[in-house]
């Protein structure tokens, strides 16, 4: 079965992101597939490459990155959510003439069409943090 995962909570702010990550791992471990992970609202912060939690705590950005790498997952951050919250890749930083970018390169900025497409294509859509 194919799952679409929507993450609306920021890391360390709510349980949503961590639960979504655990769920994603369980989906893959059970032999199912993940069509896409879409980060919306404060979920955009999950792609913040500058997050530096204490060493004895899970680094959620790295956790998403390694899961994404291992399973070739699409980690999509909504462009409107990202820009509002100062989550910029190099292209957006240049476009808005900002001095730095902070989106982890394993995440991709894209539009809401990716959310709608995922919800329509996957067998199940799971939202975390609404």
């Amino acid at each position, binding site marked *: 079965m194919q799952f679409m995962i929507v993450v609306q909570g920021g890391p360390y702010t709510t349980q949503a992101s961590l639960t979504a990550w655990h769920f994603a791992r369980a989906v893959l471990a059970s032999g199912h597939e993940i069509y896409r992970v879409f980060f919306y609202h404060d979920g955009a912060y999950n792609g913040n490459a500058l997050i530096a939690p204490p060493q004895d705590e899970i680094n959620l950005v790295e956790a998403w990155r390694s899961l994404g790498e291992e399973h070739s997952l699409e980690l999509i951050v909504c462009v409107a959510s990202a820009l509002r919250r100062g989550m910029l890749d190099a292209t957006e930083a240049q476009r808005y003439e900002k001095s730095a970018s902070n989106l982890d390169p394993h995440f991709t900025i894209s539009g809401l069409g990716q*959310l709608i497409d995922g919800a329509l294509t996957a067998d199940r859509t799971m939202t975390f943090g609404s």
Partner: protein
Amino acid sequence: MKKLLFVQSKPPHGSLQGQEGLDAILAGSAFVDCAVLFTGDGVYQLLSQQHTDALSSRDYAVTYLALEDYGVDQIYCVAADLQQRGLTTADLLLNPTPLDDAEVQTLLQGADAILDF
């Protein structure tokens, strides 16, 4: 054609959930048949005559009026949630159709996917 149901359950302005949820509804309407259900404090999003200047918040409720132009005409609310808040559909934009619990269940079951905000 597949059918998407959007559920708006947060009050406006206290967070961006409602406003960004509406953005998703507008995006969805470009692809498929969309319905919107307002539940809980989400019903406050449709209050007419919101005055948001003092909040420095965008009066995005007026954008809901554009839904009809986008072909989204299935607008529902939970009747009990309206009643508990002392509201009637006359207080709301878009004249949503109030649903009882059984009708909400039917609506949820009829959607191919549900996006919660």
